[in-house]
Structures are given as structure tokens and as C-alpha cells.
């Protein structure tokens, strides 16, 4: 009991991931006992395919939340970048260039979020709440509210193609996850991302161009959201101005569930990936077990609340966190 308590209250950096791994394992065991279909490769392909999209967006969100910020505009950015790609392709632009244009649009929105938040020192919640609406409005205006569909095969490959037993969204997710982990843990940008969340004033007094780094973090989040838009649009062969609805909440839930501190300063890419997998598995499992979707919403909401309560109680007892004022 004492050891359990120690694990619970001391500054064990990997506690959240260990706990999450255990929950993940238990979920796999329970679901595979409940349904013989759960452990089949077809089903797992399905889970990984669904989770891939969430991972891509949640990695960018992890960076933002590590700085103590938030980005509510990711779902709208996904929609806008998909719409940009669609319009470009229908105007005769090549697939590669259209994708590049869509991702640039996402990067620009992320950059303007970052500029407003860092240069004008505005609250990230309010700024991205605003851009969430502005960007969604832009997507609706460009399409006049009507979905655009029918794209070249080279484009839909990004959603439905096959690479061995896997598909492109999974590979994008793996690539983004590896890149994200590398940047967060090994580079100056990663150090400063955490320092922005831990003590921005200390970073400023150390002579670091803290505003530039903050802008970069929101730009990263815009780019990952745009990649999410690529996957959604290619998968459905349709650019839908209302695509990406509630993506922001899924992404935030996964990041927090993965053990990243909403106050910033601590975060884990591994945790985010595990949380995305857990949420994907639960949705899948509850569907296989024929549990109505209303209960799925309820169950997933409760899991997120429990995760926040556990991590919050633990941090409140960790000595390193009390001094942080």
C-alpha cells in the first residue's frame, strides 16, 4: 500500500504512462474476452485507422498544451485545409501542389493564432475560440456550404490506399508521432515548449525569443490539423465544410488523458498516442458489444473526467508542483 501511495504522490515522471499502459492492457483483455471478433486483424486495422487521424491532430495539440495553452481551432483548420485542397484540385492544380496549399493554409491559421497569442499577449482560449469560428466560416463561404467531391485517385490514396497491411494515414501518424517525440524531447524547440509552460518569464529573462517559439508551437498545431484535414478529405473523397466537427475536443481529451499537464510544463507524446489508442479501442469495443452510442459518449466522458481527477490529485501532492506559482 505504501508503495502504491508513493507511486501515486511522488514525482514519478512516467506515472501517467504506466497507469495508462495498465488500463490499455486491461481494456484489451476485457474486450477480447467479451468478443471473439475484437482481436482479429481486420478489427485492429479498423482501430488503428480510426486512431491514426486522432494521433496526427493530438500530437500538435500536445505541443500547444505543453506551453500551457490550448487550440480550439484544429477541427475548423482540418475542414478549411480540406476545402482548400479540393478547390485547388478542381481548378486543375496537381495533387501534390493542392496538398501543399492545404497544409500551408493550416500553417497560416496556426501562425496567426500564435501571433495573436504571443505578440498581443491574448488568452489562447479566447483567440482560438474566435479563429475556430472565423475559419469554419471561411470554409463555409468558400464552398457556399456545399461539399466538394470527386478527386483523382492519387489524392484519395492518402485516405484509402494500401501500403502492405497498413494505410497512409497510419504511416503519417507514425511519422508525425516519431517526429513529435524527437522534437519535444531532444531539441531546443521542445525544451522551450516545456519552459513556456513551466515559467515563461524565466525563459524571457534568459534572453530566449520566447514569442517566436510560441508562434512556432501554434504553427505546428496548425500543420498537424491540416494533415488531419488531408486524411479526412481523402478518405471520404469529399471536402466537407463541416468536417472536423469536435476534433478539438477529442484531441484535447487524448492529450490530457495521456498525462500532459493542462497548466503546461510537462507532456508526453507517448502518453498522447496511448490515449488515442485507448479511446479508439473503447469506441470500437463498445460498438462491437452493441452498446448504443449514447452510452459510448457517456463512458468516454467519464473516463476523461477520472483521468483528470487522478492526474490533478497526484500533481497537487508532487513537491515540484507546489512551488510553481
Amino acid at each position, binding site marked *: 500500500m505504501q508503495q502504491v501511495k508513493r507511486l501515486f504522490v511522488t514525482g514519478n515522471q512516467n506515472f501517467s504512462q504506466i497507469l495508462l499502459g495498465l488500463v490499455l492492457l486491461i481494456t484489451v483483455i476485457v474486450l477480447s474476452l467479451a468478443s471473439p471478433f475484437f482481436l482479429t486483424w481486420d478489427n485492429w486495422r479498423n482501430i488503428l485507422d480510426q486512431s491514426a487521424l486522432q494521433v496526427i491532430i493530438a500530437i500538435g495539440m500536445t505541443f500547444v498544451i505543453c506551453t500551457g495553452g490550448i487550440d480550439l481551432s484544429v477541427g475548423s483548420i482540418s475542414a478549411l485545409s480540406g476545402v482548400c485542397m479540393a478547390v485547388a484540385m478542381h481548378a486543375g492544380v496537381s495533387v501534390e501542389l493542392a496538398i501543399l496549399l492545404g497544409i500551408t493554409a493550416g500553417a497560416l491559421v496556426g501562425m496567426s493564432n500564435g501571433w495573436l497569442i504571443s505578440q498581443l499577449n491574448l488568452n489562447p482560449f479566447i483567440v482560438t475560440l474566435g479563429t475556430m469560428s472565423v475559419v469554419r466560416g471561411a470554409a463555409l463561404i468558400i464552398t457556399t456550404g456545399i461539399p466538394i467531391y470527386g478527386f483523382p485517385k492519387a489524392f484519395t490514396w492518402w485516405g484509402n490506399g494500401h501500403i502492405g497491411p497498413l494505410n497512409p494515414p497510419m504511416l503519417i501518424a507514425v511519422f508525425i508521432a516519431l517526429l513529435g517525440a524527437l522534437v519535444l524531447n531532444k531539441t531546443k524547440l521542445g*525544451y522551450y515548449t516545456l519552459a513556456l509552460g513551466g515559467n515563461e518569464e524565466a525563459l524571457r529573462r534568459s534572453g530566449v525569443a520566447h514569442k517566436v517559439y510560441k508562434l512556432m508551437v501554434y504553427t505546428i498545431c496548425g500543420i498537424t490539423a491540416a494533415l488531419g484535414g488531408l486524411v479526412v478529405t481523402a478518405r471520404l473523397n469529399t471536402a466537407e465544410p463541416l468536417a472536423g466537427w469536435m476534433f478539438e475536443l477529442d484531441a484535447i481529451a487524448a492529450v490530457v488523458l495521456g498525462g500532459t499537464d493542462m497548466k503546461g510544463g510537462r507532456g508526453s507524446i507517448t502518453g498522447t498516442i496511448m490515449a488515442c489508442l485507448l479511446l479508439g479501442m473503447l469506441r470500437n469495443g463498445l460498438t462491437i458489444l452493441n452498446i448504443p452510442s449514447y452510452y459510448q459518449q457517456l463512458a468516454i466522458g467519464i473516463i476523461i473526467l477520472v483521468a483528470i481527477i487522478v492526474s490533478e490529485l497526484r500533481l497537487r501532492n508532487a513537491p*515540484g508542483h507546489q512551488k510553481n506559482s
Partner: protein
Amino acid sequence: MSNQKREPIVRIVHLSKSYGNIKALSNINLEIYSGEILAIFGDNGAGKSTLIKILAGALNADQGTIVVGDKIYSSLSPSKAIRLGISTVYQDLALVDCLDVASNIFLGREPAYAGFFVDKNKMESESRRVLQGLELNIPNLNSPVGLLSGGQRQGVAVARSIFQGGKVIIFDEPTAAMGLQESAKVIKLLQKLREEGMAVVVISHNLHHVFEISDRICVMRHGQIAAICETKNILPNQIVELIMGATNIEAYAAAGV
């Protein structure tokens, strides 16, 4: 007296600063020398913190200049101050609690491959070297600084200032939140820095510590310098009188300088 013959490393000339209607500093002139501990002493609201924040580049002055070597500056930014060799150990230490010891010491000047990938091994070995040089014992350089004791945290902040290449190191209330043993350690640390030829500026409330360590004392009162005197030429109760403004300031100033 001997200080007068040397060139000051930093000179503050006619510095003034107001917050709205409140005059925080008026017409401050001060010289800082290498190999010397200068104590800035005064009551709450005397302008000590404002003065060092301007020197550190965290605040801009309304009037006056800062002379470093033969260059004259009307304002500094934090990064410019650091480049000029003026480092500050703030009262709140400005540490990032969630990062480890080495990352804090190198904050803003991490050694990196290709300017991007942080060289963690080099950071740790260099940190260990500096901390050993300061005779500070921090067993685990990988632990977040939030888990360290007050004295260890102070040590990390000092190590960072040294790493920034500071020739002038400013301490804002270094012993304010410390026990006796830890204060004694910090005082030893300041004396070590002086021996190594650095200019040390200490802001303190603790008259006992001021007399124990400083070579000169600059007494501030109501945003002005009440007196600058050599520590050996003045008595503690005279300093108290200066702070209270009870006696003839000019007389002491003349006696001191």
C-alpha cells in the same frame, strides 16, 4: 578609496524611473567594480528592485544611461544585458521547475548539434563541472529543479549566471527565504565569485549579512541614493539612521566616499 583609481565595469548615470505618478528612482549614479561585492541596502519601496531590473534589462528607465566599457546604453533587454556580461539571480530565481538541473543552467544557451538537437551529455558534464567549481552538491542532475532545496535552487540559478558568461552578477535578496546553514553557503558562494574577479551586486534586507560580506554599501531611500560608503568606514547603526533619514546624509556620504 582604491576603487576610485580603477575603471568601473558598469556605470549608471543619472538614472530615473517613474511608475505613473510615483517616482521609483530619481537621478541614480552608481559605479560597479570588478572583484568587489557591492551591497544595495534599503527599506521596502526604496527602489532597489527597480534599479536592478533596469540593469538586467527587464525594465526600461525613463531617463539616464548605463555605461558598459566604452559603450553607452539608454535601455537594455534581457538578452542584451546577458551579452554585455550582466547576469542576474532574481529573488524568485527564474527557474523552470519542470525542467532538470542541467536544462535550467543552460536555459537559452543549450549546446546543440546543427543548432537544433540539444547535446544533453555535454550539458550534464559541463553542469557538473560548474557546480563542482561552486562547491555545490546536487546528486541528481536529472531531477526537476522543483524537487530541490532552497539552497540548491539558488546554486542552480547562480551556476546559470556564471554560464551566461557574467562579469557582473546581481543577486536580488539571495538569502531572504533561507535557513541559517543555507545562507552561510550562499555567502561563501558570493565571496568565491569575488575572489574570481567578478563584480558582485547584492540586494539585501539583512544588515548583518551586508556587513559580513560587502566591500561597499549603497544605501537607498525613497528612490534616491542616501549614501555610498566603504563598509569598513561605517557602523551598522549609522546605516540604520541613513535608512530612517534621521541624520545628516551629506556628512556620512562625505565620510564614506
